[in-house]
């Protein structure tokens, strides 16, 4: 049992676990039926109290204690509001997610409550995506970096084949087409392969791109591949010999991690009976402790684990067969360049508490971005918060297994994966970074920053990295 405290001490340095302690502190009064004092809290106090309540609530949800979770949720509902200050908004979405999770203990209730929910329409998705693209500079900066990397890698190439693993945004490729058409040696033959589940999205994209290429008189072909990335047949990409291939993935690879849960669960001695994952979590936590001991021993021997590996459980980054297979398949195409854009957060912890703490931080940053750039009443902002961030939060907090798609991971994890798949890092172009920096400065907002980390770029809000862009090429020796 001493080991337990040691294990905790290794992670206690991170702010996350300090937050856990914060949740232990006694801030709440007795549990009455009404909370008149709650309404008298000032913004800051209310914020702190909301954090406290969210953590308390998450503890109860994690242990499956519906009754106590309910009490916490009731208090949160008094304070949270999707149109209040930042913390009120965040709390509203997190409490919704926590409630959704605990409600899954009663699958009947959960299903009934969601029975009439409309599946997100394509148009709605497109709208939210566009809003995200327009309101934040993150995607724009990423697109600039990706395109510049592609243009530079394809210098002198006559036949260029770009594969977009998440073909939702034609803008990026319109810009690329224009960039390629302007290059000194003349435009190449360009083929763009777009992969997406919805045919209409691809049709729209193909139309836009062909139109643009026609205008600029570039030999162009769009190759739509309708389907899920998860079961993609590489043959359908029609990569031909002699063409120079560039692959771009924007905020897409992390969902491939979702499939990796399944074998892990089966291996565990405790079968997961209810969907809330209580047993699983306990099991994980138990094994975590023993692994934590090992880590602790390592530390004594002078080989200290990275702060990240200490705070996330060692089980959260096991071999990920699905994503590894996929990356290896990509490697098989011998691309000249692979550019990966990902959320730079650690939202793939195995326990609810880990994910809650990490996602609280990163979504706080995103909500803060909005707070300082968009008016509180803006319907665009509300839409973004609800339909994009709210849904992501719900997925991170409430879902498990294959359903949990938003498995954002830090760049260092991706570096490991890409490395073992036979890729090596290519520093992003100086000129691309310059452009991205100019773009960020153009926002007239101090918060947006950019960090160059060994040739990879982190687009940050204040000091927190939000999105990472990294470029890769095939390593000669595996």
């Amino acid at each position, binding site marked *: 049992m001493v080991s337990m405290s040691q294990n905790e001490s290794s992670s206690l340095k991170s702010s996350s676990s300090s937050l856990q*302690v914060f949740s232990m502190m006694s801030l709440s009064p007795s549990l009455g039926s009404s909370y008149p004092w709650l309404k008298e809290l000032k913004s800051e106090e209310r914020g702190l109290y909301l954090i406290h309540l969210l953590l308390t609530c998450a503890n109860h949800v994690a242990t499956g204690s519906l009754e106590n979770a309910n009490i916490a949720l009731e208090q949160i509902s008094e304070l949270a509001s999707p149109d209040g200050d930042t913390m009120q908004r965040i709390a509203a979405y997190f409490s919704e997610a926590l409630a959704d999770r605990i409600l899954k203990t009663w699958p009947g209730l959960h299903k009934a409550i969601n029975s009439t929910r409309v599946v997100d329409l394509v148009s709605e998705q497109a709208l939210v995506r566009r809003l995200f693209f327009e309101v934040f500079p993150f995607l724009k900066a990423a697109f600039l970096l990706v395109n510049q990397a592609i243009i530079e890698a394809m210098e002198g190439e006559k036949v260029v084949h770009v594969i977009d693993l998440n073909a939702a945004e034609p803008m990026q490729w319109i810009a690329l087409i224009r960039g390629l058409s302007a290059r000194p040696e003349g435009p190449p033959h360009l083929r763009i392969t777009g992969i997406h589940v919805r045919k209409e999205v691809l049709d729209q994209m193909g139309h836009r791109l062909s139109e643009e290429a026609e205008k600029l008189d570039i030999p162009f072909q769009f190759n739509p591949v309708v389907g899920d990335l998860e079961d993609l047949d590489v043959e359908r990409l029609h990569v031909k010999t002699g063409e120079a291939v560039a692959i771009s993935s924007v905020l897409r690879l992390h969902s491939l991690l979702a499939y990796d849960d399944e074998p892990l669960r089966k291996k565990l001695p405790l079968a997961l009976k209810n969907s809330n994952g209580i047993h699983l979590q306990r099991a994980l936590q138990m094994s975590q402790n023993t692994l934590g001991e090992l880590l602790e021993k390592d530390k004594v021997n002078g080989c200290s684990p990275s702060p990240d590996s200490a705070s996330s459980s060692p089980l959260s980054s096991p071999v990920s067969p699905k994503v590894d297979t996929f990356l290896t398949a990509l490697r098989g195409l011998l691309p000249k360049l692979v550019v990966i854009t990902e959320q730079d957060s650690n939202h793939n912890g195995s326990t609810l508490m880990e994910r809650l703490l990490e996602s609280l931080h990163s979504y706080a940053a995103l909500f803060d971005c909005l707070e300082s750039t968009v008016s509180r009443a803006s319907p665009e902002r509300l839409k973004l918060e609800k339909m994009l961030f709210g849904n992501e939060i719900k997925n991170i907090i409430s879902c498990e297994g294959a359903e949990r798609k938003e498995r954002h991971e830090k760049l260092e994890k991706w570096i490991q994966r890409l490395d073992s798949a036979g890729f090596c890092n290519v520093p992003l172009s100086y000129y691309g970074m310059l452009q991205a920096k100019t773009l960020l400065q153009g926002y007239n907002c101090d918060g947006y920053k950019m960090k160059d980390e060994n040739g990879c770029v982190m687009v940050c809000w204040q000091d927190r990295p939000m999105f990472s862009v990294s470029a890769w090429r095939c390593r000669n020796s595996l």
Partner: protein
Amino acid sequence: MAAASSSKPFFGTREENQNQMMQEQSSIATPTSSTAPTTAPQKRKRNHPGTSYPDAEVIALSPKTLMATNRFICEVCNKGFQREQNLQLHRRGHNLPWKLRQKTTKEVKRKVYLCPEPTCVHHDPSKALGDLTGIKKHYSRKHGEKKWKCEKCSKRYAVQSDWKAHSKTCGTREYRCDCGTLFSRRDSFITHRAFCDALAQESARHPTNLSTMGSHHLFGDNHHMSLGLSHVRSQIPPLQDQNQVQPSSNLLRLGSTSGAVKFDHLISPSNHSSLQNMPSSMFFMAEAANQGFHQDHQSHHGHGSYPNKPLHGLMQLPDLQGSTNNSPTSANFFNLGFFSNTSATSSISTSEIGGGQGPALFPSNMGDQVGSGMSSLYTTSMQHENISPHMSATALLQKAAQIGSTTSNNTTSTLLRGLGSSLSGATKSDRPVFSPNFGSNFEGGNGSETLRSHMEDDSNLQGLMNSLAANGNSSIFDGGPSHGQDNNFGGFNGSGLTLESQSSNANFCNVNEAKLHQNLAAGIGGTDKLTLDFLGVGGMVGNISGGFSQREQQGINISSLEPDMKSSAQPNTEHFGRA
């Protein structure tokens, strides 16, 4: 000769190949001009890096050889030359024997060159480059140091000729994008423009912002409707409550101040040109606000709904500006983050209509919303926020974490960690239960018996936690000003019982801490540390509890501390004495 010219299309042609061939083969001198190609159009064709010549001789040179600049040294004057041919010509000046190579009539064995960098694609013989200069430049550009720096724009080059070419044009031409960015190179400018234009066009094509939003606002989900209104409500109450006499001026003020706030976000201080636009926008604001106010008086429902309009105005200010961006402000505007689009003007009007018509279309709905949205929560909280500046969520989280860490580091750290790690334990109350880990953490320590017996009871722990907070407060009271203190302290003072238990509790904590520090061999002065650090912790707790009503605060403390502390007081004091 025929053979030589036939090889032409494969090689990048030009002088380099010439030289290179000569360099490799010694034969009779021929003027280089004799190789002038007859197949001019073909000549321009670039050598594909990937094109492999199966019969070609693959040459791998070391980086040193590749990078050597003047490999051919004149033995007389030590002058170095890059090419042997040049050295030969130089030797002629010293009256030394000299010899220029000449093309043979024999077919030249084709040579391809490998990049010495093992990780490079051109390290693979199948992707070898067809000429020596090419591989030299490739190696410098891709794997070499960029030692040539343009003094004007700081761009660096690895190959001197690249640098020279750039230096000739750098600064001579400037390209300015509508967004205000300056470029010295045309290709950079075009790349950038492509992006800017694409964005603007796409936005025009799918104008998500205002027109769509307007309609969503109107016919879309009610959710937004009510959100918008509650926001309105939250802004209106201060006016109604406090300044009934001169509401219109107040409204004006409200409009203009919020407008100013917006501008702060949108306009960088350096962009003076855009400031000129402000008065007109402000005017718009004021007028819209006025309108809202007038209508406000005309209908009862108007309270909530019509002020929607000025708020719309607020939100759309950026676009309003965009629509007037004829020339001076356009640069700034584009910079605002690609919000601008060509249809800005039209979309504004659409949503203006949207904003205005909404209430008219759904009057009853509006009335409901207003009624329910009028909760006192909004009124009070917004009023508070007018006074105190808003703290970002990130800052709040940091603060919370800080509080958490100061607490855990400076009080009984292991204890709290133990608590932290038992998150998944079963829980009965709203407080997490620390039972199993907690108890065992203290096993072996003195007085663990007492502790454990306490810990078994849930409410006891609560008491302990409360006592931490209480201690924090009391230490603050000595030196710290905080408006919440009086309430809180009064609560403790109010009854002798609490006071007593508080003091015993303090011992309790101190003892534990001292002991734990001993166990952990951490040489920290326990008591000093405690007082110091509680200042930070207690400050926060004090603030929080200041918001609670006194009655409730008292309630917990008493109920939770009272029953057990009396019994525990004895051993604890003993420990304390020792510590």
